C-alpha cells in the first residue's frame, strides 16, 4: 500500500537489520523521533519478519549458574518494603500495654529479621563492589596496556599439528605483556592445556597456560615476562594442564615479530 513513506520504509528496513549508517541513520532516527507512527509501525513489523533469522538458530541452553548470578544481581532492588513496616510500627496503640508488649516483641522480631537481612544484603553488596573494583582494575590495566604507542600486533599461524588454527598476539614490549586471541585451535584435552611461549633467540620462556572453548577460541591475558630477554618469536604448544618449564608437546602456533 502506498503511504508516501516509501523513502523512509527503505531506510527503516535497513535500520531494523542494524545496518543503516552515516547520514541516513541520523536522518531516519530524527524522523522516528518526530513521532511518525506509520514508520514506527513499519519498523516493528519488519523486526517481527526478521525474527525468522534468529529462529533459524538452534536454541542453546546457557549454564545454570548464569540464572543464579542474574537472580543474585537483581536481588538488592527487591529486598525490602521498609515504609510499610515502619508505618505499622508508628500506628502502635499506646492504650493497650499488654498488646503493646506483644507488639513490641513482634516489632523487635521484625527489626531483628530486617537487620539480619540488611546485613546479608550489605555483605552481598560489598562482594559485588569488590568484584566490580577488581573488574575495573583489570579494565584499567587492559586499557593501559593497549593504549601504549609501543603496541605490536603479531600474527601466529597454525602449524602441522593444528593447520586451521590462528591467533593474534597484542604485545606490549615495554610492559612485557600482552593479550593472545586464538581461533580454531583443537579442543583442549582434559589433562592438557595450551602454553604460550616467548622465544628469545632459541630460548623459550613460559608465558602462561590457557584452555580454549568449543570453537577453539581463547582470550588470554599473559603474565608479565621477566626482564633481560628480547623476544622475537611467540609460540603455543600443547602441554600437561599445569604447564611446563620447557616445551615438550607439539607446537601448534608460531608467529614472528
Amino acid at each position, binding site marked *: 500500500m502506498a503511504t508516501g513513506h516509501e523513502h523512509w520504509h527503505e531506510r527503516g528496513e535497513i535500520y531494523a537489520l542494524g545496518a543503516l549508517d552515516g547520514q541516513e541513520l541520523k536522518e531516519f532516527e530524527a524522523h522516528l523521533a518526530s513521532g511518525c507512527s506509520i514508520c514506527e509501525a513499519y519498523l516493528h513489523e519488519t523486526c517481527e519478519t526478521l*525474527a525468522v533469522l534468529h529462529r533459524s538458530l538452534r536454541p542453546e541452553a546457557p549454564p545454570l549458574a548464569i540464572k543464579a548470578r542474574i537472580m543474585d544481581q537483581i536481588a538488592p532492588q527487591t529486598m525490602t518494603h521498609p515504609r510499610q513496616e515502619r508505618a505499622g510500627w508508628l500506628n502502635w496503640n499506646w492504650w493497650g500495654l499488654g498488646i503493646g508488649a506483644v507488639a513490641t516483641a513482634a516489632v523487635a522480631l521484625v527489626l531483628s529479621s530486617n537487620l539480619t537481612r540488611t546485613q546479608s544484603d550489605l555483605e552481598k553488596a560489598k562482594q559485588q563492589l569488590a568484584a566490580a573494583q577488581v573488574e575495573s582494575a583489570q579494565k584499567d590495566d587492559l586499557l593501559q596496556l593497549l593504549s601504549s604507542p609501543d603496541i605490536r600486533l603479531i600474527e601466529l599461524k597454525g602449524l602441522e599439528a593444528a593447520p586451521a588454527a590462528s591467533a593474534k598476539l597484542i604485545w606490549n614490549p615495554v610492559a612485557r605483556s600482552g593479550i593472545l586471541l586464538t581461533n580454531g585451535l583443537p579442543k583442549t584435552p582434559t589433562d592438557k592445556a595450551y602454553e604460550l611461549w616467548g622465544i628469545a633467540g632459541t630460548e623459550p620462556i613460559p608465558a602462561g597456560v590457557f584452555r580454549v572453548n568449543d570453537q577453539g577460541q581463547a582470550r588470554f591475558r599473559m603474565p608479565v615476562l621477566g626482564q633481560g630477554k628480547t623476544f622475537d618469536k611467540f609460540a603455543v604448544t600443547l602441554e600437561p594442564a599445569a604447564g611446563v618449564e620447557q616445551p615438550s608437546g607439539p607446537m601448534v602456533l608460531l608467529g614472528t615479530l
Partner: protein
Amino acid sequence: MPADQTIAVNLIQKVANQDRDAFGQLYDRFSSLVFALAMRMLRVRSDAEDLLQEVFVQIWRQAQSYSVQRGSPEAWIVNIARSRAIDKIRSIRRMEKSFVLTDDPARAESGENVESSAAESEARMAMNSALANLPETQRKVLELAYFDGLTQTEIANRLAEPLGTIKTRMRSGIQRLRDMLGTQAV
C-alpha cells in the same frame, strides 16, 4: 495474539512490578534463544554468557517500558540482545582497527570466519524453509548485518560490491521473507 505471546506479555507486566518468580519464568522461556543468538554473534562463550546476563538485568530494570504496541515480547528481547551484541562487536572492531596492519590480515581472517560460520549454519537453515529459499546473495547480506553487526557500508566493502547493490539485496531479502511468511507490510 497467540497464547504463548499472551503469557510472555503477562510475565513482562509482572516483572515490571518486580516479581522475581515471573522474571525466572521469563528467563526460562527466552534464555536459550538469547544465548544462541549471543553465541552466533559474539562467538566466544564467555562473552555470550556476559551478554545474556546484561540482557536479562536490563529486562528486569526496563520491563515497565515494554508495551505490546512496541512489538512482541520476543522481538523486544531480541532487539535488546542484538543492540548490546552489536555494540560489543563494533567496539571490538574499532579496537582491532587501531592495530590492523596495512595488508589487513585480521580482516581477511574474519572474512573466512564468516564464510565458515555460514557453512556451519547450513544444516539449521535447511530446517527453515523461509531462509533456505532465499537466494544466497540476499541471505548473505542479511546474515552479515543481522548476526555479524556489519553496517551497509561495511558489507559493501567486505563483498566489494556497490552500496546500492547491497541495499537492494537487503530490501529484496526482507520482502521475500515477508512474502514467504505471509506478513503484511504497513
